């Protein structure tokens, strides 16, 4: 079933919308959740929350891309759960798996920086400024939490190239965020 019809089912309050979403995008959403939370009970709970959130937000929302919309919900709910777990010390810090991240992106000063600017607007301007391939690699790594070998295999490029693109994009990000903060 195409996305428009599934969204139509949400608008008609037909519960078939949920099973159609699960059938079409369940695997993708599960992969996002498990990369952040692992495959335990937290992930299962998060999956239920995703469908609940889709059900309660459509309508009024009418996403242009149901797939991207559902991914955004999956990611946000996963990170909410992760934050909760971290606060309760029930989980390892995810950024340990992202050891390429410079200290300037993981320290308290960065947390302060993002409070001072309109981050969403800034970040999407930054994404726009990247070349397409760099943007895709950047988001695969930091949005979808894919590993470097996974990205290399998926895009048919070398791991060295993935590292190189990420290094440059992060460098540019740090440069731009400092500029934005000063402005």
């Amino acid at each position, binding site marked *: 079933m195409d996305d428009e019809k599934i969204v139509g089912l949400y608008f008609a309050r037909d519960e078939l919308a949920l099973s159609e979403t699960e059938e079409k995008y369940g695997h993708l959403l599960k992969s996002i959740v498990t990369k952040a939370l692992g495959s335990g009970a937290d992930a299962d709970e998060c999956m239920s929350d995703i469908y609940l959130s889709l059900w309660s937000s459509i309508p009024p929302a009418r996403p242009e891309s149901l797939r991207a919309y559902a991914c*955004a919900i999956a990611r946000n709910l996963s990170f909410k759960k992760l934050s909760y777990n971290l606060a309760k010390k029930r989980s390892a810090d995810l950024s340990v798996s992202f050891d390429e991240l410079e200290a300037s992106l993981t320290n308290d000063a960065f947390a302060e920086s993002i409070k001072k600017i309109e981050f969403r607007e800034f970040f999407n301007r930054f994404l726009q400024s990247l070349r397409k391939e760099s943007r895709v690699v950047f988001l695969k790594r930091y949005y979808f939490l894919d590993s470097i070998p996974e990205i290399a295999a998926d895009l048919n490029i070398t791991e060295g190239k993935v590292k190189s693109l990420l290094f440059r994009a992060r460098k540019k990000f740090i440069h731009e965020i400092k500029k934005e903060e000063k402005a």
Partner: protein
Amino acid sequence: MKNDFLEQVGTADEKYIEEVLEYRSKKITVSKKKLIAIALAAALGICALSIQSIAAPEAFEDPAVLTDEPGRISTFTPSKHETSYLKYDVPYDSRYTRIEMDENYQAVLDIDSAENFAFNYLEVIRLNDDEGKFSLERGDTVNVRIEIDLEAEGLDDGPVEGAREGVHLTFGRAVGDHLIEIENFQPDDDTDGVLECTYTAPTTGEYEFYIQSGEIPWVHVKSISIEKIS
């Protein structure tokens, strides 16, 4: 909380998420270059290089030439009608390896077998005056000025972190087939777009200079000028 950065990446617009989900990869192919030199920086491992014919059979009289920094030279003659494969063992102490071939070859790189490869497609530009070489007296000084385009579109394969030295932009002197480095520029985001250096001739004689540039976005060369200043 150390996940602020990762969490904030979640604010990406849906159009970019859709773009990622739709994205399909492209194969890396280099072709139709008069001279292709591939620099493998600080690498250890095996580079699998396949070279394919894109020209008439008579073009295959000259082999591709590999030269690594310790001076080891090997040649490779591709097959006339089918793809040839070359496995090249990059030595640990090699800062870079040059693989040169003419426009009749098409090189397809497969570097998956080595973890830490950083590679660029480099071009050597010989800098000659109208008569072919610079005649310099001992103590004469030349000034080279290189204007680079920091935002140029190019092959998007830059060096990886920790393996940057030696693969950016080099001004040097050509002595026969040998290239002697004079200045190695490493432009970065703080570079204003112009690189300059001077060279003083140690002896009287004919001098031929070269620039080795990489077609990566921040070292794309817009113009080069060289002049005698004293």
